[in-house]
């Protein structure tokens, strides 16, 4: 019987992932964490930024691939580059801070200067380098980067499949997700960052866990009006979870809100009637008001893209692994570029209401995740169960495995990709 599988009989980390459960040591074992950085984060497409976070030539954002610091920057020709944040002289980081705008990257230690495309431009007192330093060979190290619908990914693996293939079935959902600009291009409106004492996979699972919603988020549900509370009462509805391949999954909680351009003639919910009035007073047409109001609360699904980004109803959730038992989460608020100010303002307020370190939702999620981490230390052996909904699977119109909205189908999808990557032999 599976429950009697002894962890001691297991030879590789991949063996800790079964079809319906994973071993609890995946949350706390330091050696496993190191191997994950190598075999997962250094070995797949990792999300770094949204293009709107780099609006101008010279706009940059610092980020990490696993634990490696990188710079995402837009050059003078508006092309996006990703580079390791490490001076080629003796290795200092050349860029600090979350984001900003610059003309060049100058190393603080001995002043080597790099262009926005990473090329080494200037070296102070070059005489001592005569004939021994070819500047062309000492640019910042470039990382392969590709984008889809403004989402910038990078990978340290040169021969990895194109981003397009990697995203595969997730693309259809990204196309739907970007509609929440309400007819305007999607724009990042800032991020809230927080850390919790738990493993990154606990958060990865959570984005595709609707089972917890009515329990953990009871205090949030109590804080919204009846109409909204009804919208969030989705466990018995027609929602579903689909395995999209490559570890990605989508959890549709509110099917009516999958396509924000549909059903524009529906009555405007009471909680948005003030917004609708304001927009109408500003002279927006009835159709435009309806499109904005429909988009303001976000879409009805969470798209979980393995390993570090989710398009979660109305925002991006980016996870950053810090150590086996610590994870940093970035909640990036979204709105429309050039959209009416009241629309973006409302989206920000809705975001603040649930998300972030003082939101009405996140702290309770955080408490549950902490408890999972703490509980995983109990006993010398034990499994995390992921079998919910396994006996009632079907096939979706797209040919994907589909389970109920509160099934653990998305978690199983993520862990099968995890298993595949962890089973790949080390390159050295």
């Amino acid at each position, binding site marked *: 019987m599976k429950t009697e599988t002894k962890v001691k009989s297991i030879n590789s980390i991949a063996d800790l992932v079964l079809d319906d459960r994973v071993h609890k040591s995946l949350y706390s074992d330091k050696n496993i964490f190191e191997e994950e950085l190598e075999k997962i984060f250094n070995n797949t497409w990792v999300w770094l930024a949204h293009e709107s976070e780099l609006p101008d030539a010279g706009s940059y954002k610092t980020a990490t691939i696993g634990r490696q610091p990188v710079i995402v920057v837009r050059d003078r020709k508006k092309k996006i580059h990703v580079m390791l944040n490490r001076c080629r002289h003796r290795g200092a980081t050349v860029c600090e801070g979350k984001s900003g705008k610059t003309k060049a990257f100058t190393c603080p230690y001995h002043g080597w200067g790099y262009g926005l495309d990473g090329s080494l431009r200037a070296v102070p007192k070059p005489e001592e380098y005569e004939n021994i330093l070819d500047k062309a060979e000492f640019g910042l190290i470039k990382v392969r980067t590709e984008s889809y619908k403004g989402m910038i990914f990078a990978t340290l693996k040169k021969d990895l499949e194109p981003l397009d293939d990697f995203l595969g079935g997730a693309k259809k959902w990204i196309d739907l997700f970007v509609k929440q600009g309400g007819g305007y291009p999607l724009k990042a409106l800032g991020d809230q960052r927080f850390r919790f*004492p738990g493993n990154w996979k606990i958060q990865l699972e959570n984005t595709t866990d609707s089972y917890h919603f009515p329990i953990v988020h009871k205090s949030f549900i109590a804080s919204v009006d009846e109409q909204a509370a009804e919208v969030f009462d989705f466990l018995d509805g027609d929602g579903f979870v689909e395995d999209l391949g490559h570890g990605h999954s989508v959890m549709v909680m509110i099917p009516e809100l999958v396509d924000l351009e549909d059903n524009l003639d529906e009555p405007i919910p009471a909680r948005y009637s003030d917004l609708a009035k304001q927009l109408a007073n500003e002279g927006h047409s009835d159709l435009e008001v309806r499109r904005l109001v429909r988009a303001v609360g976000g879409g009805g699904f969470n798209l979980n893209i393995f390993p570090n980004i989710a398009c979660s109803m109305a925002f991006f959730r980016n996870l950053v692994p810090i150590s086996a038992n610590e994870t940093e989460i970035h909640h990036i608020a979204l709105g429309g570029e050039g959209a009416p100010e009241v629309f973006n303002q409302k989206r920000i307020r809705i975001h603040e209401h649930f998300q972030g*370190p003082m939101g*009405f939702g996140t702290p309770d999620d955080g408490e549950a995740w902490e408890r999972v981490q703490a509980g995983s230390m109990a006993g010398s052996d034990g499994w995390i169960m992921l079998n919910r909904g396994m006996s009632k699977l079907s096939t979706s119109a797209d040919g994907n495995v589909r389970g109920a909205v509160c099934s653990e189908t998305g978690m199983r999808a993520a862990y099968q990709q995890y298993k595949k990557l962890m089973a790949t032999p080390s390159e050295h």
Partner: protein
Amino acid sequence: MKLDTQLLADVTAFLNIEADILDNKDYLQWLELWLESGLYIVPVDHNATDYANSLNVAYDDHEMRILRIERLTSGYAVSTQLSEKTVRTTSRFRILDDVDGLVRVRCAYSLYENNKNGIRCYPANLQFKLVRDGDSFKIAEKIVKIMNSSQYLTTVSYLF
């Protein structure tokens, strides 16, 4: 610089009472310190000035203050069930100006929290707009600039 020590003493007394009320989690009493039109803001970015159009950690008007207090006291929220003890100290009060009955003040603030992870400290700069109300004041704006709010925080289940 002319010092108005009487106003400073009044403001200090008022803001120490506010801190004491929050440490004792007497949230309904806290609500009474506010003008209804007042705003309680915990920004992410300390350089932000247009808070309404920026993403904040918290941006509470009267309605949100009431909802937040309900959340903190209802017992529904798992993160508030092991009600964390807090100790806050305020100091370095400075009156920035006093125009038409509106007093702008800033001060240093540290909040110590005890929870299952041990004691955590949040140093912050506070900024207040206070309106005279008889012998006392009402809060028209409170801005809490937590030192590392633009880097990362941990989740919190009380008010700063």
